[in-house]
């Protein structure tokens, strides 16, 4: 199949060999699980349990709330011991609502409803079951999967692209799951294709994963699923880029993949979909890559949602040396965390303990306009110019240069010889613009309030004046009447 060219991109050192050769192993059941209510994009889930409740594995413990949200299930059987704030893998370090579950070690499943032939289900039924299972995009974006299925089906999608790119260095969780669970993934892919009524099914896998490609090809034999090897390049696994390389089309600016008849799902999501449909099992665990030069035994594990990061690191035999940075996700777009009590969430693809040498960051120096960032940008932006505008607080200047098209992939920061934190500038600017937008909306509403109040006060004053005038008129009339009467009596 013909592949299409991408612009820009970078080739960071893969470092996938650290963890790629070991089988996925389950992490021993932790004593306490800390289940975040915010494991997806959208409104946080609302807890359905009370402290002291006994729950079974797979039991619904928090319901979706609002249009964009996702339910959450108990990762194991046990007792709810706390409801309240917990550590979040968010850069702000702000707490998130969290359910604490003490496991009883019995792993007793709730009654699940298996389906013998999932392909007899209607697309709507598939979406509904996916939604009930709390499945979100496991590539990292954590958008509720059922919503995406419904949106895609309703807007008439013809091509389903399964993302097996895994272009982030170090991460091998998708690689391993494709090697070890290819048959289930292919079934999941076919179910997703049914749910969105897609005619073409393409699975894009970077060519640095030959074993995964071979396993997937073997499993996809005699099906409509096409496995395609893509060149290894960062950010090949980004939605916009994988669509472009496989179809040659671009998502219109500000639009969604469905605008060009495409929907993209991650391969790990397909596995979760298959488990949910065939066995009725909700999403309560995921594959996590443990890697980095500071980790003693880099590997891939299957971890229950809510497992503290510390338990994973212990399972990988701890550190070889103090890690300069702990990162959740990949090194290019992952999240630096400052404490290991942060739990695994549905979107956690990796836990990396990186050394200072691996990070390779030094103090920023002046921009020499070498335009390496311009060549690296996969979107076609001018990172150096945008950062220069943001530096002097000219955010609208940066917007005019295309700030809102930035996908924050970090390629520019990666290649910058001056080590300027370019993508940090862009995320700051995006956040500040959003805050300004909120402030503007608030100002508009408070302005209306102020106007209403001014009017009310004016009305009260008017009313008072009128009332006073009326009283005065009445008094005068009375006086006049009295005077007239007096005069009359005098005359009389």
């Amino acid at each position: 199949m013909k592949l299409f060219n991408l612009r820009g991109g970078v080739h960071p050192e893969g470092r996938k060999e650290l963890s790629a050769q070991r089988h996925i192993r389950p992490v021993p059941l932790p004593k306490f699980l800390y289940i975040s209510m915010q494991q997806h994009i959208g409104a946080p889930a609302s807890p359905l349990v009370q402290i002291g409740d006994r729950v079974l594995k797979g039991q619904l413990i928090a319901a979706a709330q609002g249009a964009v949200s996702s339910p959450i299930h108990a990762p194991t059987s046990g007792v709810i011991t706390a409801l309240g704030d917990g550590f979040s893998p968010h850069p702000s370090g702000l707490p998130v609502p969290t359910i604490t579950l003490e496991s009883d070690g019995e792993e007793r499943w709730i009654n699940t409803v298996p389906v013998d032939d999932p392909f007899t289900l209607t697309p709507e039924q598939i979406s509904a079951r996916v939604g009930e299972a709390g499945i979100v995009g496991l590539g990292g974006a954590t958008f509720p999967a059922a919503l995406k299925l419904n949106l895609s089906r309703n807007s008439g999608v013809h091509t389903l692209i399964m993302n097996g790119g895994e272009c982030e260095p170090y991460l091998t969780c998708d690689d391993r799951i494709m090697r070890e669970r290819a048959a289930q993934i292919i079934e999941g892919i076919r179910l997703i294709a049914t749910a969105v009524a897609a005619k073409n099914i393409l699975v894009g896998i970077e060519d640095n994963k030959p074993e995964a490609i071979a396993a997937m090809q073997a499993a996809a034999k005699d099906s409509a699923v096409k496995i395609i090897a893509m060149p290894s390049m960062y950010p090949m696994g980004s939605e916009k880029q994988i669509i472009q390389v496989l179809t040659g089309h671009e998502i219109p600016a500000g639009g969604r993949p469905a605008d060009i008849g495409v929907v993209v799902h991650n391969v790990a999501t397909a596995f979760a979909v298959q488990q949910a449909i065939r066995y009725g099992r909700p999403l309560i665990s995921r594959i996590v890559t443990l890697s980095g030069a500071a980790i003693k035994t880099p590997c891939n594990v299957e971890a229950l949602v809510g497992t503290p990061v510390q338990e994973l690191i212990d399972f990988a035999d701890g550190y070889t040396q103090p890690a300069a940075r702990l990162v959740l996700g990949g090194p290019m777009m992952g999240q630096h965390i400052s404490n290991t009590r942060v739990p695994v969430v549905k979107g956690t693809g990796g836990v990396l303990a990186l050394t200072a040498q691996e990070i390779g960051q030094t103090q920023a120096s002046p921009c020499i306009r070498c335009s390496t960032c311009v060549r690296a940008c996969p979107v076609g932006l001018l990172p150096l110019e945008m950062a220069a505008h943001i530096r002097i607080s000219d955010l609208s200047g940066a917007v005019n240069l295309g700030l809102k098209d930035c996908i924050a992939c970090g390629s520019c920061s990666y290649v910058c010889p001056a080590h300027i934190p370019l993508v940090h500038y862009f995320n700051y600017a995006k956040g500040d613009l959003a805050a300004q937008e909120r402030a503007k909306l608030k100002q508009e509403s408070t302005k209306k309030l102020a106007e209403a109040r001014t009017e009310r006060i004016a009305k009260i004053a008017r009313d008072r004046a009128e009332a006073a005038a009326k009283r005065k008129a009445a008094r005068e009339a009375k006086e006049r009447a009295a005077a007239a009467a007096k005069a009359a009596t005098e005359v009389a």
Partner: protein
Amino acid sequence: MLLSAVISLTMLGIILGLLLGLAARFLKVEGNPLAAELEQLLPGAQCGQCGFPGCAGAAQALASGTATVTLCPPGGRALVQALAAKLGVDADLSGVKESVPMLAEVKEEICIGCTRCFKVCPTDAIMGAAQQIHVVFREACTACGKCEAVCPTESIKLQPVPPTLQSWYWHKPSAAEAI
């Protein structure tokens, strides 16, 4: 040689002057009601922190050039930029404090329910009645500080709003972000 230079320069002067004259005539911008437009941009809370009589007064002062675009504390940086863009001046943001968002908050233990604060609140953001503890509607509060000024027991005060997961965003990188 000399003559041709003189002639060509003169011609150039005449033609360009003519063009300018024509441009001034045909591209003339009607005097716009600038003050009204500026008032549209201002918060409209009439809080008086700028020292002018209400937002209309401030707009007048801005339009006549007697006030700088940084006059309005509740408007923050966004307003400074909006005003600067409207007036076509360079915004000097150095003087504008990276203002932490503030909101009025009532300390319930010492509120005596005197109703003074909600009488002065320009946006009706304070709810309450005589002898009852007052409450602030966060959505309506503009942090103008009028209530703080009239409160006899210092129970109502402006407090910085702690960031939430929804409102938090990355700080601006310092000039040389050293890691």
